[in-house]
């Protein structure tokens, strides 16, 4: 028959017990060998990776917590620093105000003192000048009087007389 050659097992007549044994032995040996040389190591690696991933996730979680904690700390520190800076600035401002007031008042006092001393000096200079003028007037007067009288009166008497006169004149003035 033409189609006979396509019937793959047409030649087999008896039950092939040997094939059963061969199939079982080959399959089971293959399974054992694969378990030992391929699936076992592969499963080991996959398990290892699973563990690695789990531990990495744990580590990442820990790192995240740590970072959050540090961030909180940093924030608190920053806040503290800011308030501290503010107080420093404020106290410096206060200090500056106080210093300014002090400097102004000191300058004012100094100015007053200078003015007063100047006034005092002027006063003394004026007195001195007046005194000098008075002396001059006395001596001029004596000179004039002696010239007018043409005679000498005792210098002492004269001087006393003139001083008296001038004092009277000063009072009258």
């Amino acid at each position, binding site marked *: 028959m033409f189609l*006979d*050659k*396509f*019937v*793959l*097992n*047409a*030649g*087999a007549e*008896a*039950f*092939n*017990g*040997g*094939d*059963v*044994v*061969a*199939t*079982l032995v*080959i*399959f089971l*040996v*293959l*399974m054992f*060998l*694969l*378990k030992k*040389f*391929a*699936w076992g*190591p*592969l*499963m*080991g*690696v*996959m398990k*290892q*990776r699973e563990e*690695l991933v789990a531990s990495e996730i744990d580590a990442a979680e820990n790192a995240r917590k740590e970072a959050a904690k540090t961030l909180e700390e940093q924030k608190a520190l920053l806040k503290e620093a800011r308030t501290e800076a503010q107080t420093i600035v404020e106290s410096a401002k206060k200090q500056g105000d106080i210093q300014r007031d002090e400097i102004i008042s000191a300058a004012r006092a100094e100015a007053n003192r200078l003015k007063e001393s100047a006034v005092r000096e002027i006063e003394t200079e004026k007195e001195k000048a007046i005194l000098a003028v008075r002396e001059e007037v006395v001596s001029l007067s004596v000179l004039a009087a002696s010239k007018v009288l043409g005679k000498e009166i005792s210098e002492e008497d004269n001087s006393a007389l003139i001083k008296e006169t001038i004092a009277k004149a000063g009072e009258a003035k």
Partner: protein
Amino acid sequence: MSHGVPEITLGFLTFNLSTVLMLLITAAIVFIIAVVATRNLKLKPTGMQNFFEWIMDFVRGIINSNMDWKTGGRFHILGITLIMFIAVGNLLGLPLGGVYIYGDLWWKSPTADPVVTMTLASMVMVLATYYGIRMRGAKHYFKTFIQPMPFMFPLKIIEEFANTLTLGLRLYGNIYAGEILLGLLAGLAGSGILGFIGAIVPTMAWLGFSIFIGFIQAFIFTMLTMVYISHKVSTDH
């Protein structure tokens, strides 16, 4: 042109040498791929390691959809080996589909042999029964045959055999049919220049479809394996 199978009989066991050869080739390919892919394992996977990790996760998904991982984790290696072995076996018949040497068929998918698929299916059912008894106890195991109603007992017995038969024969039928059609198309292509031109497009289409079927059947076999095992070992019914 007569064709046959290269059989030898050792004692009371008859071996189909072609099947044994193809089983060995399949196992060798799976082993080499797996070992090459996992030879240089890294925590950050690259290339083939990615692919194999995807297979592992895929089978883990199949198991998880049937039972909880505490029960099903021990079947992970069985599942990965089954899906790889069957997928490679299914695809193996495609490139040289039907090589005859001295009238004997040597190159075919190992899964296009009902003895192979039924052996795998029976192995799954034996494993399921073994783990069912070991994990739930013999009493519970036999009680499941009269649940929910005692008159279900005959049906439950039939179910056991039907499950095994459908599991094995579904795979066999799909791959065997695929190879027959591939053989027909190859015969058409070899019949003459017109036949060759006419066979190109259907052959390409059928090869593509067979690759798809090969993967799908590997997935279905693994999926049903886990379904049947979970029927026996899980506590929720």
